[in-house]
């Protein structure tokens, strides 16, 4: 458990956070730029000396009124957005730098990290010659070699283009599932958060706005304004059932089968799939002659009027919750109410590859 009760004043806002964070799996710290999320991470790491208050981890005080544990003594692994690899050392030198200072602390071996992150071909190269994605992989490897008790990641993918992000995300998923290191993951990307994080903390203007399991928050109609109506969407869990000859992948969900564009994962792989609220269509009766492939029975659990012409509908789909964003007019015409049985319709192609992540079985 990481316990925070800290404040730090800035010219235009004050970061003020009183929060306990269970150190298990990935916890996302989500917010727009300027919300204070990176600063919060820096305070935890001990890099913001002006911060006041308390930081403690599992009963050990890192900072309070009288004590301040130096950053290098906290046992934190830190992955910077700009990687901060040492330019005067090779990739191997950068990894050794961490390894030499973590002797006897029971961290992973160089071989394990090199294998896990496919760093073998990069070892003799200089950081200046690496692509953004390669640099970030080295940065992650270097942080792991310090044998950290917690890994802090500050927007590790923000500086990368979509292709590079897609290249790194599977490594992060494997890291989450295989290394027993809790991760605090700062991001402003809902796609990354929904793929990686078990829990999330939403920051706005230096304050914690929401905190809870990612799946619950993303399925909460009240939280939609935080994420924005276009980005809002719940996560459903699924399992790869098989690959079809026409390029589709069949997935089983607790609410029924789902056909999605080809997913590169073996049958049996557990997935979490983010479905954008605006991609879901509702019907009172089972429609026929429709091009959309996925028509699943669901029950309305909540209706929430938004600002403007939209309504957010929360649906129960087997054991998962789904959000749909429709117009007020449609809700009125269909006379939608809580408890009503409806059909949720989803175009297969509406689900992009970035919305699908692997998860431990």
């Amino acid at each position: 458990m990481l316990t925070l009760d800290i404040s730090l004043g800035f010219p235009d806002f004050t970061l003020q956070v009183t929060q306990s964070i269970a150190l298990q799996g990935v916890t996302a710290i989500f917010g727009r730029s300027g919300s204070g999320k990176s600063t919060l991470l820096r305070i935890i790491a001990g890099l913001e000396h002006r911060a006041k208050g308390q930081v403690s981890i599992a009963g050990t005080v890192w900072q309070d009124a009288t004590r301040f544990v130096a950053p290098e003594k906290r046992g934190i692994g830190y992955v910077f957005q700009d990687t901060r690899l040492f330019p005067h050392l090779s990739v191997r030198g950068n990894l050794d730098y961490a390894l030499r200072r973590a002797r006897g602390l029971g961290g992973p071996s160089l071989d394990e990290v090199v294998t896990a992150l496919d760093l073998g071909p990069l070892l003799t190269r200089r950081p200046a010659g690496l692509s953004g994605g390669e640099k970030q992989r080295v940065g992650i490897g270097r942080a792991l070699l310090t044998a950290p008790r917690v890994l802090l990641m500050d927007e590790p993918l923000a500086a990368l283009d979509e292709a590079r992000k897609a290249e790194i995300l599977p490594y992060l998923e494997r890291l989450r599932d295989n290394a027993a290191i809790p991760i605090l993951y700062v991001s402003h990307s809902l796609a990354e958060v929904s793929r990686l994080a078990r829990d999330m903390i939403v920051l706005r203007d230096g304050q914690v706005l929401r905190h809870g399991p990612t799946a619950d928050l993303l399925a909460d109609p009240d939280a939609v304004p935080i994420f924005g109506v276009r980005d809002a969407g719940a996560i459903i869990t699924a399992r790869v059932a098989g690959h079809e000859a026409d390029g589709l992948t069949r997935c089983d969900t607790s609410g029924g089968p789902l056909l999605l564009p080809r997913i590169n994962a073996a049958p049996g792989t557990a997935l979490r799939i983010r479905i954008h609220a605006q991609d879901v269509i509702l019907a009172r009766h089972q429609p026929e002659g429709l091009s959309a492939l996925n028509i699943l029975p669901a029950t309305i659990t909540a209706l929430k009027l938004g600002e403007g012409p939209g309504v957010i509908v929360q649906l129960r789909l087997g054991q998962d919750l789904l959000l749909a964003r429709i117009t007020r007019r449609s809700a009125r015409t269909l006379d939608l109410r809580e408890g009503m049985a409806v059909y949720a319709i989803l175009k297969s192609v509406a689900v992009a590859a970035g919305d699908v992540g692997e998860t431990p079985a």
Partner: protein
Amino acid sequence: MDLPDLGPLWLTLRLAGITMLVLLVIGTPIAWWLAFTKSRLKPVAEALTALPLVLPPTVLGFYLLVLLSPRSPLGGAWLDLTGTTLTFSFLGLVIGSVIYSLPFTVQPLQAAFESLGRGPLEAAAMLRAGPFDRFRSVVIPMTARGFLTASVLSFAHTLGEFGVVLMLGGNIPGQTKVISIAIYEHVETINYADAHLLSGVLLVFSFLVLLLVYSVNRRFPVSVG
């Protein structure tokens, strides 16, 4: 033709070398503080360290003479303690040279530290490196060019020192008679042959030092600072 006395050359090299080493030791923390401080006193400190750049060496030498003379509290205390004077001595020249060449050490180092920034230091701290470890393993290699520039400039600037030495040290062979004073004296006594020789030696030596530095500098892998 008799060879001119090369004593002033060795004295000058010794003075420049010692000054350079002393400046690296005291200039590095000053440059570090200037690079990273948010204190409102920073402009004052910057102006003070830059003063030797603009002050005529005679003015600097005059104040040092006043400060170090046996009649001043500092010079008096030194005399009581050691029985020697700070003025008209090699030690006095070292003190004068350190102040005279201070900006030539501090400014390149400050620039190098500023362009290095806190980023690499924070990264090193997150890899369990303590303050001295960070300085040794990250700061020095990443600002090596800055250190090289600072060393060469302070060394070379001390080589050419004249005004401060004249005011503070006079012309004592083996003690304070540096090469520029010796050349001046040769010219005064219309001994152009020896003036030529010493000047030529200094010219060639200075050129070779700079050539060496610039050749080495080109091969540095990291170009921070």
